[in-house]
């Protein structure tokens, strides 16, 4: 069976991991970095992803998409309150948010697919093989639409998504593999955009989730925003500048807020410096950890209610928890650790890298699916109750939250009017009484043969599979015939739309490759220019002046080529420069060798 990789598609960063000799490991890039920033930028040379796209956040804010995970499976109304924070343009078509990048609109799954493709390329380069199958993680509290959107993203990226698994449970797999713990654990997963709590029982290789809860709109992003609001208000009051009207500076404020928050996890105070627009100088202030904590304590408190509900649903008290595992970058904050410790009454476990543990767990799950690991089994639950609309706008629950998946429920439907040929069914997810307070998942129309009222008997099976995704089938009990159902998702792409996006994605793949080559060539050219200039400064005197002039000419030519849009030209100029600098490099090597030997006896050599 072809290799299956594990992918953590995060709000802030994404990672790809695989199993190597029974141990999961994350794929690094050429510089050894394991995290790909979940950022996509449209540049003059096409779409770019990751570290290089991150640089465009301040340079090109309207065309640089970050935190796209917050929009997965959502409509515009769901994110109305935070629209002001995003510099890029959002709209909605067919219940799905669209993000404008240059002349075109993209759905969140398409943007996520670009990140997935980048990860796929990275793994393919590292493993020298083609990657087509993956396990992708999602927040445990993701609803059906958000899971489906993630699966769509995989398809668009050319990946067969064999399993969608929950982030905290993935983390527990990696943790269980490493620590060999038995007992009851709580996984507290506070990431860039989402919060999850999962309570699991680990016993003889079985990882049984007892309860899960969370908030898919609560994460590090929200902590940053508190700081952004504070700085923006201070800049307005002290300097009379509305920084919010400068998208590029606003991004700089956001990034500085994020960096300051991170620094304050290790330090007690830090200096904030924000460059102001229109050459108005800089805004500076000191921020202490105490100040940060008093600003964000309310947000951190919001993670505790889901923890209490999960404990209650599991029928446990904090004393029953043997170990608390921390996952996600936001758990590096000392205040978060204090609150978690106070709630559970024990010091949380944080030996594992909270940034990598989810991807590692996804790789373990991938290995289970491919038959490599056979002693571990994850029994997960559905985070939200599933039901249908009944008379009076009330939701009738069919599958309760925290039911182990796969889970199924059957419901028999009939008609009220003679000759009625259809029954409309509205599927919902949520914990509230009324339909309007729950999440609409989908609608479909059951076809019924025209018969006297009450005679038709159509049995509908609602099955939540191991991915936490709903499948609906229907059977006419009179004839025993199965009926195919066309479910129209309330907040999702239709199958035809996904297919078109897959085609588009292949069409644009060629352009994307071109853009990536150009960016890589530019980065390499920069590195070469830097080292050559350094060599010239240090050892220019060791080679003839004519050669130095030649090197300088090549340098100028390479710099010019670097600003162009042709990767091949850049590579050619680089080769020329390397050629011109051959003597210089040899001379430098000889010189350093001589220096290192200087003062030593021949016998020492």
């Amino acid at each position, binding site marked *: 069976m072809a290799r299956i990789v594990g992918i953590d598609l995060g709000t802030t960063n994404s990672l790809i991991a695989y199993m190597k000799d029974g141990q999961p490991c994350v794929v690094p890039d050429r510089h050894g970095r394991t995290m790909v920033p979940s950022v996509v930028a449209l540049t003059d040379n096409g779409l770019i992803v990751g570290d290089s796209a991150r640089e465009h956040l301040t340079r090109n804010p309207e065309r640089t998409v970050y935190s796209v995970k917050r929009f997965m499976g959502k409509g515009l109304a769901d994110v109305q309150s935070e629209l002001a924070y995003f510099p890029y343009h959002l709209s909605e078509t067919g219940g799905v948010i669209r993000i404008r990048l240059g002349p075109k609109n993209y759905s969140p799954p398409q943007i996520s697919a670009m990140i997935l493709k980048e990860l796929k390329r990275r793994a393919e380069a590292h493993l020298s093989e083609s990657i087509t199958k993956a396990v992708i993680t999602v927040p445990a509290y993701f609803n059906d639409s958000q899971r489906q959107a993630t699966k769509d993203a995989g398809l668009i990226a050319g990946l067969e998504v064999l399993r969608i698994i929950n982030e905290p449970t993935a983390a527990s797999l990696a943790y269980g593999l490493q620590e060999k713990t038995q007992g009851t654990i709580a996984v507290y997963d506070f990431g860039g955009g989402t919060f999850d709590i999962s309570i699991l029982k680990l016993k*003889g290789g*079985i990882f049984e989730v007892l309860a899960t809860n969370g908030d898919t709109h609560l994460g590090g992003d929200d902590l940053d925003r508190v700081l952004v609001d504070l700085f923006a208000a201070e800049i307005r009051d002290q300097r009379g500048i509305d920084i919010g009207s400068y998208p590029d500076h606003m991004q700089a404020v956001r990034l500085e807020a994020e960096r300051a928050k991170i620094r304050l996890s290790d330090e007690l105070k830090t200096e904030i410096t924000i460059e102001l627009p229109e050459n108005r100088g800089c805004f500076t202030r000191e921020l202490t950890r105490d100040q940060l904590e008093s600003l964000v304590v309310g947000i951190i408190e919001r993670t505790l209610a889901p923890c209490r509900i999960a404990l209650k649903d599991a029928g446990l008290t904090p004393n029953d928890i043997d170990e608390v595992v921390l996952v996600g970058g936001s758990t590096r904050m000392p205040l978060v650790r204090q609150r978690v410790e106070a709630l559970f009454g024990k010091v949380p476990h944080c030996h594992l890298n909270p940034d990598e543990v989810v991807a590692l767990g996804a790789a373990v799950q991938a290995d*289970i699916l491919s038959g490599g690991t056979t002693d571990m*089994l994850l029994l997960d639950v559905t985070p939200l109750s599933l039901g249908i609309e009944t008379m009076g706008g009330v939701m009738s629950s069919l599958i309760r939250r925290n039911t182990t998946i*796969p*889970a*199924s429920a059957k419901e*028999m*439907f009939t008609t009220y009017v003679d000759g009625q040929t259809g029954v409309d069914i509205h599927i919902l997810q949520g914990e509230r009484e009324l339909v309007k307070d729950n999440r609409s998942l989908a609608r479909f129309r059951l076809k019924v043969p025209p018969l006297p009222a009450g005679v038709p008997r159509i049995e509908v099976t609602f*099955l939540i599979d191991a991915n936490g995704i709903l499948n609906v089938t229907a059977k006419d009990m009179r004839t025993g015939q199965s009926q195919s159902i066309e479910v129209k998702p309330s907040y999702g792409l239709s199958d035809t739309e996904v297919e078109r996006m897959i085609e588009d994605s292949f069409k644009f793949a060629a352009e994307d490759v071109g853009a990536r080559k150009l960016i890589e060539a530019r980065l390499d050219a920069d590195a070469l220019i830097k080292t050559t200039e350094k060599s010239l400064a240090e050892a220019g005197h060791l080679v003839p002046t004519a050669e130095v002039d030649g090197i300088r000419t090549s340098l100028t030519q390479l710099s010019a080529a670097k600003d162009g849009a042709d990767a091949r030209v850049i590579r050619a100029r680089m080769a020329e420069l390397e050629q011109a600098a051959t003597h210089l490099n040899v001379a430098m090597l000889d010189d350093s060798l001589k220096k290192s030997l200087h003062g030593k006896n021949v016998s020492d050599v």
Partner: protein
Amino acid sequence: MANDQSSPHSETRRQLQMARSMCWHCQSEMSGEYFCERCVKVQPVSKDADYFTCLGVPRRLTLDPKKLEAKFYELSRAFHPDFYQTKSPTEQTISLSNAAVLNTAYRTLRDPIQRAEYLLALEAGSVKDIRTSPPADLFEEILELQETLEEYRASDRDSEQGHRLRATLQTEQQTLEGRREDMESQLRQLFTDWDQLQDREEATSQARAERDRVLKHMRDLLSNRTYINNIVSDLAATIA
């Protein structure tokens, strides 16, 4: 739309049992429990099998939770879709539906109350005349309590009246919780009684009457307990 959980007609049942005796893949006579002994393919759990049969435990009301869990884990390892990723589509479908049935079975039997309610449904044939509405005295009491609850919800919580109502409700909650405790201990006794009757396997009319009596008593207690349970959680949520 109407909920209908009646069992299939006897004709269908017979066909299902016949289908069950043959491997769907190699058509050989089935002797293994979940896997064909000849071709080692997973077999669908019979749609007719009750949850006790499905989990391979006796149809009893007192079950050892540890043994039940061990059985659930063992069967999860046998059926879970994770282990069928490389198998044929038919096997994947069987694995998915078997795992779903297994999960429902375990969820139902794991909880003593749900287990008893399920058993009552299975045995319903022999206790057709049981009453499903709560006894009048309990009904009156609950109605009265609902009124006090409404009054409290409408009142200013910090007023003297609010404090008084709250105190009344708190006392009521404690009384009801005590009553629920009582019912549960009675139920536990009935569970043991039922299991002993089953163990004796007597087919006399006296034994049948005794079984019906236990079932009926159990049903009454379970339904009263549900009423009390609902009002207690309502109370707890309101005065919390």
